[in-house]
């Protein structure tokens, strides 16, 4: 088994805590106006593209409807989330984790490569991530997590004065709000799969805490030496 870098482990758990707080307080915020729109404005449920369910209070922060408290938690947890994302990107680029484990080759995107990943369920310690893992992790790091930060900033009426271009790029405030919602559920989907797969091999969870029981084995192929390589 190969070790996770300290930066990876630290970020993983801080980010996990931030995401749980953000998601659960976000459900309360969704309950405050359960309709999503495209474009700049939107307030009439008749114009909504989606009427969201009312999320039960057992799933929300706080555990009853209180928008003010939910907002306090949400924008507090946004700081470790956003700063952490910046940190892990810098760390991944600096220590080679990104180049070694996340960058895909064109061949990784072929149906054959995807099928092979699923069938063999490769990607154990020594081989590095399989194409499906690379694509999923890359999508989370490169698309979903940054999208949460940018759409979140765009929803803020104070921040729009600093970066009006952000609203333009995202297609208006209500579009940004819709994208924020969609991306949050995509992250939730990843979260569920991620946890189920980790529970199936609990040593992976231990490795994310301790860094891995043993040092990199001498038999591991040279290019992957000293690097995390499990799902």
């Amino acid at each position, binding site marked *: 088994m190969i070790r996770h870098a300290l930066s990876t482990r630290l970020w993983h758990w801080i980010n996990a805590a931030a995401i749980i707080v953000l998601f659960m307080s976000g459900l309360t*915020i*969704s309950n*405050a*106006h359960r*309709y999503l*729109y495209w474009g*700049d*404005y*939107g*307030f*009439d449920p008749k114009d909504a593209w989606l009427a969201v369910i009312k999320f039960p209070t057992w799933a929300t*922060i*706080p*555990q*009853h*409807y*209180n*928008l*003010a*408290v939910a*907002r*306090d*938690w949400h*924008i*507090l947890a946004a*700081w470790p989330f956003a700063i952490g994302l910046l940190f892990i990107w810098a760390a991944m680029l600096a220590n080679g984790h990104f180049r070694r484990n996340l960058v895909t080759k064109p061949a990784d995107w072929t149906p054959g490569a995807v099928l092979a990943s699923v069938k063999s369920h490769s990607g154990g310690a020594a081989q590095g991530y399989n194409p499906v893992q690379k694509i999923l992790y890359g999508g989370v790091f490169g698309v979903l997590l940054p999208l949460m930060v940018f759409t979140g900033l765009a*929803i*803020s*009426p*104070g*921040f*729009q*004065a*600093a*970066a*009006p271009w952000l*609203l333009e790029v995202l297609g208006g*405030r*209500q579009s940004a*709000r819709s994208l924020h919602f969609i991306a949050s559920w995509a992250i939730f989907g990843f979260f569920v799969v991620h946890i189920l797969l980790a529970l199936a091999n609990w040593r992976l969870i231990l490795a994310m805490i301790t860094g891995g029981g043993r040092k990199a084995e001498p038999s591991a192929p040279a290019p992957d030496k000293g690097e995390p390589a499990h799902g």
Partner: protein
Amino acid sequence: MVDLPRRSLLAGIAALGAGACAKINESETTRSLVGAAEDGHRAVHRALAGKQGLVPEYTRAERSPTFKGNGTVTIANPFYQEQLAKGFADWTLEVRGLVETPMRLTLADIRALPQRTQITRHDCVEGWSAIGEWQGPQLSALLDAAKVRAEAKFIIFRCADVLYGRDYYESVDMVDAYHPQTIIAHSLNGEPIPEKNGAPLRMRIERQLGYKHAKYLTAIEAVASFDNVGQGKGGFWEDVGGYQWYAGI
């Protein structure tokens, strides 16, 4: 007057009895962190956008077809209803507090001042947005005419509406008070402001959420602190529901 379902207040009160999460939430550490974050957000926004940084303005074609009314949408008070019926002929706006020259202006006085027209987006804390064209004098013009004293740190907006048995009010610091898009609007989409949207006068605080945009305006008051204002948190929803005073997020 603004933007929140009634249950949020009830839930806020009920929160006091809840379990461990409520304890964490009410803890000194959490409250001070949340307060620090609020001040931090204001500082970061001001640093990034500049004190005078403008929010985007829209074209007439980009306006929403109607403008949602929320919070207080009608005022039962007989004087208000009488004034509404006769175009607010006797309505006045007072400028008072820490100023050299207290003033009392009629709607005609306010319309006679240099005007600013802006088509902006209104974002409610609940999440919805509406876009409308507002017109009125800049607050800075009134503050300059009244000569605000140096010790004034905040501007309080007094309102005619009463919610949950309390007078609605709001406040901003001097940066937002002197922001070019901070106007005392008397018209929405070319017509006098409808009752549900705050007739006859409503503040526009464009870089903050809807609950800061005080409706049914009766007075503007310069103060040095919130000590003797409401419950001391700078606004109705801040006092009643624990909402953030800096509502730029």
